């Protein structure tokens, strides 16, 4: 081992307790950072995936303005052929056409206003998880049957079940009165109140008939292979669209999602920042002590001809060694902790109620990843080095004679 390195290492353990306490501060913060960051980003991933997979998909083709106003007449003409064409051009099955209308659904006893989607039964399952959530009966089949699937809570409120009939009242594309009697073939439970209470789906063909859509719909939903592929797919679709249609990505479709993540991230990073600063102060404190208490000693070696710059480097080297131990231990403990939760899952009291608002399950399994493990400890390490700069620079102001006089 290099002599300077060995010197630095020995110096570090002159006050073993102090060094360990300082490393303890690093390990504590690093562990927390690794775990929190892994947990947080796992949550974001889940939030995005779960929210987008319910309905909105990664992107949608719509008429301009529909996203904000959701008006009946802001239509995509010939929606099914468009979807068909995109499926062919992109060689992808995860593309489906939809129509949407508001209507009054009445059973024998009750009436509720609901949102009715017209969907392509054979493709809807590729872009939305609702078809997979049927708890009772089955999902839609033929494209023009007068069938409907509804949310579980809506079924309870309307006091109906599979096989019962519902009367739908609404207005058609041309503003005329639209009415139909449909048969409930399935009931789904998504776990999200808003959806289970307010949503129904029927085959697009039947939907277009009931609401006089004349082949039109309101959206073509596209799910890219992964979230990361979405921008590329979006560009390819945008290039083929006529002027009277636009494609919106998920951020535009679900502005709340991205903003909720941003809001959450900024408060989280404020907290992380504070932790890092507190660790930096801990290091500053220790290194300042270690420099001050060696004033006499430093005076002697300077009198013997050692340059202050080299002493400064020695102090920085000591800090680096200490920081490295903190980095490695913290990252390891943090990763282990995260790993444990990735197997056993994490939940806290109240999480279930809170999580439902963000389409999250009541138990989360954070994933261990190299980047998320190293990020926090790396920042702590950087600040550790920064904190040692002041004590190291103080050495330059040291006068050998004065230094030797202090005990």
């Amino acid at each position, binding site marked *: 081992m290099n002599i300077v390195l060995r010197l630095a290492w020995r110096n570090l353990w002159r006050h073993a307790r*102090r060094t360990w306490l300082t490393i303890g501060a690093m390990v*504590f913060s690093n562990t927390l950072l690794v775990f929190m960051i892994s947990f947080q980003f796992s949550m974001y991933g889940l939030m995005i995936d779960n929210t987008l997979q319910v309905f909105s998909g990664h992107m949608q083709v719509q008429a301009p303005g529909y996203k904000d106003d959701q008006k009946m007449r802001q239509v995509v003409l010939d929606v099914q052929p468009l979807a068909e064409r995109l499926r062919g051009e992109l060689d992808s099955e995860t593309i489906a056409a939809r129509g949407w209308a508001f209507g009054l659904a009445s059973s*024998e006893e009750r009436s509720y*206003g609901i949102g009715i989607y017209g969907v392509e039964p054979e493709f809807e399952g590729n872009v939305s998880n609702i078809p997979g959530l049927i708890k009772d009966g089955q999902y839609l089949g033929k494209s023009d049957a007068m069938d409907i699937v509804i949310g579980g809570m809506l079924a*309870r*409120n309307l006091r109906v079940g599979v096989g019962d009939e519902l009367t739908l009242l609404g207005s058609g594309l041309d*503003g005329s009165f639209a009415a139909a009697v449909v048969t409930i073939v399935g009931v789904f439970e998504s776990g999200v109140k808003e959806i289970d209470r307010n949503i129904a789906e029927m085959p697009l063909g039947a939907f277009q008939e009931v609401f006089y859509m004349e082949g039109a719909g309101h959206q073509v939903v596209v799910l890219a292979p992964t979230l990361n592929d979405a921008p590329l797919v979006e560009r390819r679709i945008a290039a083929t669209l006529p002027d009277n249609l636009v494609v919106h990505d998920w951020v535009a479709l679900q502005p709340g999602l991205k903003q909720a993540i941003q809001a959450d991230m900024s*408060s989280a990073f404020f907290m992380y920042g504070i932790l890092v600063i507190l660790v930096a102060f801990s290091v500053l404190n220790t290194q300042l002590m270690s420099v001050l208490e060696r004033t006499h000693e430093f005076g002697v070696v300077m009198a013997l001809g050692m340059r202050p710059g080299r002493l400064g480097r020695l102090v920085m080297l000591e800090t680096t060694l200490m920081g490295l131990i903190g980095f490695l231990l913290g990252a390891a403990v943090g990763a282990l902790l995260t790993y444990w939760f990735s197997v056993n899952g994490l939940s806290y009291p109240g999480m279930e109620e809170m999580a439902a608002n963000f389409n999250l399950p009541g138990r989360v399994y954070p994933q261990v990843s190299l980047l998320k493990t190293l990020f926090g400890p790396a920042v702590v390490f950087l600040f550790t080095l920064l904190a040692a700069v002041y004590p190291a620079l103080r050495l330059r102001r040291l006068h050998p004679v004065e230094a030797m006089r202090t005990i």
Partner: protein
Amino acid sequence: MRMLPVLIRLAWRYLWRNHRRTIVMLSAISIGAWAMIFMTALTRGMVDQMITDGISVLPGHVQLHNPEYLDDPSITNRVSLTEAELETRYADAGFEAWASRVRVPAVITSERESRGVTLLGIDPIAERDFSFVDYDKVDGRFLESPDDSGVVIGAKLADTLDTEVGKRIVLMSQDPDNEIADRGFRVVGLFHANMETYEDTYAFIGKKTAQKMLRIGDTTTEVVFFGNDYRNVEPTYEKVAAAVDDSMRVSRWTEVDTYLGTMLSVMDGFMLIWVVVIFLALSFGLVNTLVMAVFERVREIGLMLALGMKPASILGQIIIESMMLLAVGLLIGDALAWLTVKPLESGIDISVVAKGMEMFGASSVLYPKLHMDDVILSNVVVLILGFLASLSPAWRASRYEPVEAITKV
């Protein structure tokens, strides 16, 4: 006890003997304390706002319903007491405010569009003080009496429906016999709310008008009550519950809106965790400082012991020193927090993430709030934990043998 002044003086002097170290430590404690309180004030402000908003939309600290109504909010599940009967039971009970109202799902139709809404039949005068709508900021006018014949809807909904003040819309719901109950209304006002969803969801009409339209005579679907503190609703709850039998269901707001209810306890828990985490991050430095402070005055400790000072006094001296360090740091931190929160109390605009905040159920203006309770809690937690953390170094200091300590170089 009589040692206290000596110990305090010694502790204070020792604190400033190594002033650089003390200043570094003080800065750390101050920043930690500031962060605790600042963060707490932000979340407290947010949660307060969320809950106040939430409660004004519910509305009420305590609600009275038909037992079926919460699961099945239908016109058939009404409060079985007439308004006159409610009046005799609750008029003189001393609530901050209370009101009976009609709330049913309905469909609103303009010339061009239809949407689902929650139809609210209210007495605008009784609800003025707790309504989430500021009557004075309504475009057009708000309802004026229970038999007002107009409707007030959200500005956002008006956009979607392509309608405006003065135009007509149709509201459609069902009567208790499942017959369609509908009526045309003139839009008299458009309200604005903190959150877009509210503007999308609610349509206000007069309570009498609603009762007539829905053919429910002198009955309502909910009665709402306000006490003076949303954290302590028990007195209100008991007063309401005492006056009715089992055929009615009385619920606290935490039960009606479980999200908000859990929010409150989760936030309280979160803040305690945050305070403890910060403390722990500080504790390493604190213990370190104390260990060093003891280490560099071993001889002096030996001297004091030799002169007849009791080990307990040495223990006390170190603990007092630690408490002083924490107290001064906390004081500076508290002051910093006060200085930074006060100017922000008029509200921080975070409308860049408005839609995101709406997902949390919070509005786009954050009003940080410095609650005395929170400040005291964080200070006390730090002092108590700090006391515990200093026990070990202080104990070690008091265990020195005087001779060994004195001769130690």
